[in-house]
């Protein structure tokens, strides 16, 4: 793994007391390759390597570990630091309902996450209402209604209503029916689809969500930053959910998204069942990216 790879690089540099710019350069080239193969964005990886280089150069070589292990430790610490200190908490409204708005690209796992979030909130003593705001995808409403039946959690939907009005009606429905959390399941959309992005801005303006969560597929490659940046620009979302992390994708998208948006990764989706939701662990993510 990474530290063994770096050790072979450092074997060529014998008896040096300090980590110098030269002996680190080649090691960092290897680290950069590891990050890129893990799907970390090209520019994010470049900035990251520069930051590690600054931290590593001039450091005394610690006697008990090899220079390779030392560089890995610096990389690992910098990665964990970047990923965020610990899981961020959800923000609840003082006056119910707390409104969650779930957004992201097509197929990223939003609808499934809505079910997971609803189940999670109920286990914390809340009364969630899921709202089927995707009026476009064939059987999307049916999908959420089916999930509602499976979980025994209410789903709000009204025919012949646009997503903005639907969201508004769902909130007044929750006030009359005692649900203290409203979760809006929006349609997947491209960040470059002007009209669809405007729709999200409109929903946000109309109902003022307490939490907007950007749901991204954990196996996304270099493109992760483009969508994240645009959703950030348009919606200033509060947090990120990374799905399908039960696969073997290294998940470099996590670092890329965190680096360009600064927003915390709140949850991991780790399966198709509705209990497959994990709180984000920055250090676990760092080890995964480094392979």
């Amino acid at each position: 793994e990474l530290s063994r790879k770096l050790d072979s690089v450092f074997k060529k540099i014998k008896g040096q007391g300090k980590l110098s710019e030269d002996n680190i350069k080649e090691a960092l080239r290897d680290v950069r390759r590891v990050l890129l193969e893990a799907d970390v964005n090209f520019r994010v990886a470049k900035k990251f390597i520069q930051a590690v280089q600054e931290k590593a150069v001039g450091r005394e070589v610690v006697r008990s570990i090899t220079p390779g292990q030392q560089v890995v430790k610096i990389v690992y610490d910098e990665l964990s630091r970047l990923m965020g200190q610990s899981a961020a908490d959800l923000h609840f409204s003082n006056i119910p309902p707390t409104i969650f708005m779930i957004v992201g690209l097509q197929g990223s796992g939003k609808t499934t996450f809505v079910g997971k979030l609803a189940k999670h909130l109920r286990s914390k003593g809340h009364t969630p209402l899921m709202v089927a705001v995707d009026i476009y995808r064939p059987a999307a409403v049916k999908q959420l209604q089916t999930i509602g039946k499976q979980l025994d959690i209410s789903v709000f939907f009204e025919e012949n209503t646009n997503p903005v009005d639907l969201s508004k009606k769902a909130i007044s429905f929750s006030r009359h029916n005692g649900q203290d959390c409203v979760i809006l399941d929006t349609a997947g959309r491209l960040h470059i689809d002007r009209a669809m992005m405007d729709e999200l801005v409109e929903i946000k303006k109309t109902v003022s969500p307490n939490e907007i969560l950007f749901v991204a597929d954990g196996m996304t490659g270099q493109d992760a930053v483009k969508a994240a940046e645009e959703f950030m620009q348009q919606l200033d979302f509060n947090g990120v959910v990374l799905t399908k992390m039960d696969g073997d994708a290294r998940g470099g998208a996590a670092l890329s998204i965190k680096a360009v948006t600064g927003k915390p990764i709140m949850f991991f989706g780790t399966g198709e069942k509705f209990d497959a939701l994990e709180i984000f662990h920055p250090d676990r993510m760092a080890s995964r990216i480094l392979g």
Partner: protein
Amino acid sequence: VALHRKIDDDLLEEIEEILITSDIGVDTSLAVIENLRRRVSRDHLSDPAKLKSLIRDELKMLLDGGQNPDSADFFSFSQKPYIIMVVGVNGTGKTTTIGKLASLFTRGGKKVMVAAADTFRAAASEQLEIWAQRSGSQIVQQQSGADPAAVAYDALDAAAARGTDVVIIDTAGRLHTKVNLMAELEKVNRVLANKIEGAPHETLLVLDATVGQNAKRQVEEFSKAVDLTGIVLTKLDGTAKGGVVIGIAGEFNIPVRFIGIGEQVDDLEPFNAGAFVDAIFA
């Protein structure tokens, strides 16, 4: 890649960034850059525009390597019914692609049947039902939780009875790392093969253009479970370039057959390597 620049390390780094950010992958990108460096010194190249066309040609060649000539025409076949199975990880666009593909066939005068063999995910068969209506195809479905292989088997029976030309089987999204789900897929494949010799005649792996290097793992594992005959690359109407297919073409020899460029029934196009590579440098 600006005009009137000399070919130097900065330019090569710029090209490396274009390649890597297109998800072409580190190994393939480095190999392409290395070949480029050699050509530049060997032929004393000084025109940056020439560089770009050299890379284009090399990438196109890598891709064409994956398209073997006898898989040339997807729409010419003699088997009846012609069986197409669609597989891939979760959310890549399998069901939507089937709707589009079915429509291509029905517009070409073929009788199409789709099989709702995703019996797991909420409203999966309802979703396929709508695509069946949109594309003018018949649908075979069973209750949620039914055995996917049983649905596929039923579809073949129904197709024989109705003189169907094409059967397209929708399977549940599944991560290639899930041993039991891959075994389930193998079973569906086996049931089809035992029922009709040579079936499924096509097995398409649907890849999301936003996927990163994990695509290689997906191709690896799905290839072990089934005999992949083609790839469909979806969501190319987004900003992702889908460069992963370049390395995959070279390594696995599986041709990219179609690209998905939207969510409507007409948003499916035959794959064109030249256009695909041009888009990387757009």
